[in-house]
C-alpha cells in the first residue's frame, strides 16, 4: 500500500495546503469585508472543464496506484510469481503513444493559432496513432497467448492483462472524447470551445502516456 499512500499523501498535502492558505487569518464571522472575500477565489485559468478533468484524473490515478500496490504485494505474497518475457512490440507501442501525445500537443498549439487545417491533420494523427496503439496491444496479447502465457496460468500474467486492459479502456474512453471534439471540428464549431476540447484531449493523453510509462516500467522491472 506504500505506493497508494504516497500518492494520497502528496495529493492531500497539496489540497490541505491550498485550503490552509484560504482559511488562515480569515474571520468568517465578519460580514461584508471585501478583502477576505476576494482572496478565496479559484484562479481564473482554472475553468470548470479543466478542474473536472483534474478530478477525474486523480480518481483514475487512484485506480492505477491501487492496482500497482496490489501487484507489488501479490508479488511478494506467493511463491508462484513467474515474470512475463519482455516483448519488443511493447517498445514499438510505447513509441506510438508518445507520438500520439506529441501530435495532440501540436493540435493544441495549432488551435491556439487558429490554424484549422493543421488542427485537423494533427487530430487525425493523434487519434490514428492511439488506435494503432490499441491494435498493437491486442497483438501483444495474441503473441503472449500463442506462447502459452494465458491469463489464469500465473498471477503475473493476470496482472499484465488486467493492467493493460484497464489502460486500454481508459484510452478508448479518451477516444470517445476525441471523436466528439473531431465532430465539433468538422461541423465548424465555436473556436473557443474547440480549443478547450483539444486542450483537454492533450492533457488526457499526457496522462495516458504517464500511466503507460509507469505500467511499462513496472512490467520491465519485475
Amino acid at each position: 500500500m506504500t505506493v497508494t499512500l504516497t500518492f494520497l499523501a502528496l495529493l492531500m498535502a497539496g489540497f490541505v495546503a491550498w485550503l490552509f492558505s484560504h482559511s488562515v487569518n480569515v474571520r468568517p464571522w465578519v460580514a461584508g469585508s471585501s478583502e477576505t472575500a476576494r482572496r478565496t477565489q479559484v484562479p481564473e485559468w482554472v475553468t470548470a472543464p479543466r478542474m473536472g478533468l483534474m478530478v477525474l484524473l486523480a480518481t483514475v490515478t487512484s485506480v492505477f496506484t491501487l492496482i500497482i500496490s496490489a501487484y507489488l504485494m501479490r508479488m511478494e505474497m506467493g511463491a508462484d510469481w513467474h515474470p512475463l518475457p519482455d516483448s519488443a512490440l511493447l517498445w514499438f507501442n510505447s513509441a506510438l503513444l508518445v507520438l500520439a501525445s506529441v501530435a495532440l500537443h501540436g493540435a493544441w498549439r495549432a488551435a491556439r493559432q487558429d490554424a484549422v487545417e493543421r488542427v485537423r491533420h494533427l487530430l487525425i494523427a493523434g487519434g490514428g496513432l492511439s488506435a494503432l496503439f490499441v491494435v498493437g496491444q491486442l497483438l501483444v496479447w495474441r503473441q503472449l497467448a500463442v506462447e502459452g502465457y494465458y491469463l489464469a496460468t500465473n498471477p503475473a500474467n493476470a496482472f499484465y492483462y488486467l493492467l493493460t486492459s484497464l489502460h486500454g479502456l481508459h484510452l478508448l474512453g479518451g477516444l470517445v472524447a476525441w471523436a466528439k471534439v473531431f465532430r465539433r471540428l468538422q461541423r465548424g464549431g465555436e473556436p473557443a470551445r474547440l480549443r478547450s476540447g483539444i486542450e483537454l484531449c492533450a492533457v488526457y493523453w499526457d496522462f495516458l502516456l504517464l500511466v503507460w510509462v509507469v505500467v511499462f516500467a513496472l512490467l520491465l522491472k519485475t
Partner: protein
Amino acid sequence: MAEREYDASSHAPPAEVGEMELVHPRTFIGKYIWSQDAKVIAIQYGLTATAIGLVALVLSILIRLQLGFPNSVSLIDPASYLQHVTMHGMIMVVYLLTAILLGGFGNYLIPLMCGARDMAFPYLNMLSFWTYLLSVLILVAGFFVPGGSSGAGWTLYPPQSISPGTPGVDGGIVLMLVSLAVFIIGFTMGGLNYVVTVLQARTRGMTLMRLPLTVWGIFMATVMALLAFPALLVAALMLLMDLLLGTSFFMPEMLAMGEITEREGGSPLLFQHLFWFFGHPEVYIVALPAFGIVSDLLAVHARKNIFGYRMMVWALIIIGVLSFVVWAHHMFVSGMNPYFGFLFATTTLIIAVPTAIKVYNWVLTLWRGNIRFTVPMLFAIGFLFTFVNGGLSGLFLGNVTADVPLSDTYFVVGHFHMVMAVAPIMVIFGAIYHWYPKMTGRMLNDTLGKIHFWVTFLGTYLIYYPMHFIGLEGVPRRYYAYGETTFISDSVQTLNAGITIAAIIVAATQLLFLFNLAWSYFRGRESGPNPWQATTLEWQTPHTPPRHGNFGDALPVVYRWPYDYGVPGAKDDFIPQNVPPEAVEYLDGAHATGKGAT
C-alpha cells in the same frame, strides 16, 4: 463610520463564473424523468435509495425474526439467512446511506447553498442517477437468479465469497460485484460534479469560509469517496476475474467440497487490504455529510452560531485525511504483525481527537442557545447521543487487546449500528424534516414526526444496547442458530427476543414516516419560503419549491457567513447570508459595529 457613497456589491468580488446556460425542458418526461435539474435528480436519488432501503429493512426484520424466535418462520433457512445478512449490509451502507447523503442531499443542497444555478455538468449529473438506478436494478436482480443473492457477507471476503457451497455463488455474487462496479462509475460522475460545483460555481461573496458546514461535509466526503471507491472497484474486478476467469489474485490453494482447487498462491489478505482501504473511509463518507448537516440543524434550531466554525471545518478535513490510514484496524485478527496492529490502533485513536472536538462544539452550540424543540432538532440531538455512544464502544474496538476477544461478536454489531447506521439515519431523518418544506412547500406533520422520533430513538437503544452485552458474552455474529452452546447463557435468547420485538416496532414506525411524507405532500400546512428562519441561501429563493435555475433572474450576493443567529443588537434573531451590512436593522441604541458588521 466613514461617509461615502455605498455600493453594497462592493463587498463581494465579481462573479467567479459566468451565468450558465440551462436546458429547460418542456415535456413532463424532460422535467421529471430525464431531468438535468439537480433538485429533481436529488429527489430521484432519494426516492430510489428509500425504496431499496425498505427492502433492506424488511431483510433486517427477517434476520431478527430468526434470531429472536428461531425456526418460527419457515421462509428462512441457513442459506437464505446469510443472503439476507449480506444484502441488508450492502444495501444499507452503499445503496442507501452513501446514495442518499451524497446523491440526494448533495445534489439538492450544493447548488442551492453555494448560490449556483445548477451543478457544473448537469448532463453528467443526470447520467450519474441513471447509472445508480441501473446498479440498484442489477443488485436486485440477484434475488431472482437461480441460487439467489450473494451470501458472502457485505465484506465479500474470499475465498469464502467465491467458493462452491457459499449461497449465491452461482450468480448472486457476480451480480453484486458488477452492481458495485456500476455504482462506482455512477458515483464518480456525480462526485466530479459535487467537487467542481463547490470549488467553481459559488456565487459572489461565497468564500470557502462562508460555506455552510453541510456543504463542507458533503464536499470532503466526496473527495474521499472519489479516492476510496477505486479500491472497491479494483477489489471487485479482481474478485470477478478470480471467480469467472480462474485467476488467483485472492484465491489460495485449498480444499473445497473435498477437492483441491486448481489455484495456488493467491492471497485473501490482499483482498482485505483493498476492501478496507475502501471500507474504512466509507464509514466517514457516510459520517462527514451527517456531521455537516447536523451542525447546521443545531445552529438553526438553537438560534446560535455554530461554535468554532473554523475548527469544525478543519476537524472535517483532518478526519477525512486520517481515515485513509486506519484501515487495518478491521484486520486485527488476520494474523498481522502485532507492531503493525499497534500502529493502526494509534492512528485509529488519534481520530478520536478531531471527532471529540466536533462533539464538544456541537454541545457548546447548544449551550445557552434558544433551543426550539422542533422535529429536526430532536433528531439532531438524538444523533449526538447515538454518535457519542457508538464512538465510545469504538474506543474498545480500536485497541488491539480489547478487539481480539470482541472481534466478530455482537459487540461489533452493536457498535457499528450505533455509530454508522443509527447516527447517520438520525441526521437523514432530521434533514428530511428540515428541508421537506423547501422541497415541497409544505410542512411535515409535527405530531407524527414526534412519534416517529421518540419511537425510533428509544427503539434503537432497545435494539442495539443489549447487543453489547450479548457480544461481551462472546456470542458470534452471522450465525443462523446457536444450538446447545455452553458459553451462551439462556438470558441471551430472552434478550434476542426483546431486540426483535423492538426492531419490529421501530420498523413499523418508519411506515408512519412514509405515510407522513405522502400525506403532507398533499395536506401539509403551507410552509412559506423560510419556515425555520434560517440564514442559508436555499431559504432565500424567490420560489418555494425553487424552480429550475434556483434564484430567478439574478444570483444572490453573499455578505456574511451562514451563522448570523442572535447577532447582538440586531432586530431579528437571524440575518440571511444575502443581506448587506447596511440593510441590517438594529434595535434603538445598538451600534452597527457589533458582531456581523464591518
